[in-house]
């Protein structure tokens, strides 16, 4: 499923619904993506998402939880509170990035 609509905008996504084109993401879209998975986006969420967005082009891959904690300065506990249960995947989804590939 390459092209789909989110909030009546045409967006490229994969089979699961993760965005596949970095540039198509907007903060407005993040709000909708977050709402899709039951998260009300706050400034705290956005700070994490902004780190992920900025880190991705530099690293060429989505930051793992550990990287978000160590390089981004967001405590692991906070990430579990903001994005319950599956923080790494949920953050990636809201940030319009692929799922992280690293094991740790």
């Amino acid at each position, binding site marked *: *499923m390459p*092209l*789909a*609509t*989110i909030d009546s905008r*045409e*967006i490229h*996504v994969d*089979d*699961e*619904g*993760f965005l596949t084109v970095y540039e198509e993401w907007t903060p407005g879209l993040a709000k909708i993506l977050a709402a*899709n*998975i*039951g998260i009300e986006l706050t400034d705290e969420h956005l700070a994490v998402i902004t780190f992920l967005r900025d880190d991705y082009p530099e690293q060429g891959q989505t930051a793992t*939880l*550990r*990287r978000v*904690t160590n390089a981004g300065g967001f*405590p*692991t*506990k906070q990430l*579990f509170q903001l994005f*319950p*249960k*599956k*923080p*790494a*995947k*949920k953050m990636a*989804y809201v940030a319009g990035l692929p799922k992280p590939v*690293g*094991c*740790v």
Partner: protein
Amino acid sequence: MSAVMEAPIPSFGDEAPTDRKLAIICSKGSLDMAYPGLVLANAALSEGVEVHLFFTFWGFDIINIKTMAHLQFSPVGNPATHMPTALMGLPGMQAFATHMMRKQIEGIDVPDVPEFLELITDAGGHLWACRMSADMMHVTEEDLYDRVEGIINAADFIELSDGAQIIFI
């Protein structure tokens, strides 16, 4: 009208209340045998799975504050090193092999043991120590990493791992 479909929403399994639970028994204290349990625990936690790590026998080295940062890798009798067995027992070989493995682990940005335990407990993982091993080795809670929740006996472990999938390492 556009024929483009509404984008799917990934399933993060939130609808189904997960009762999945993992109990990992860590019975080895060498550097190479410490990591599988730590990596799996961390991965399971970030998938929303409840995780208990039970440290027993040589696994105590992973949570003993004196040893946890200094686990060793022994190449003796390990064909996977692809080196002549006769050389592996030479003086200095274990230190060298350990040094190499630490560098490789660090090279792929995987944390050392103390940081890994911090990460796991921050993510909600539970650490337990085995009563019999503690008694045998004359180890008390003061000797153990402060995030170990308690020294428990075998029956306690059987109780807390009720309904869990168990991995023995």
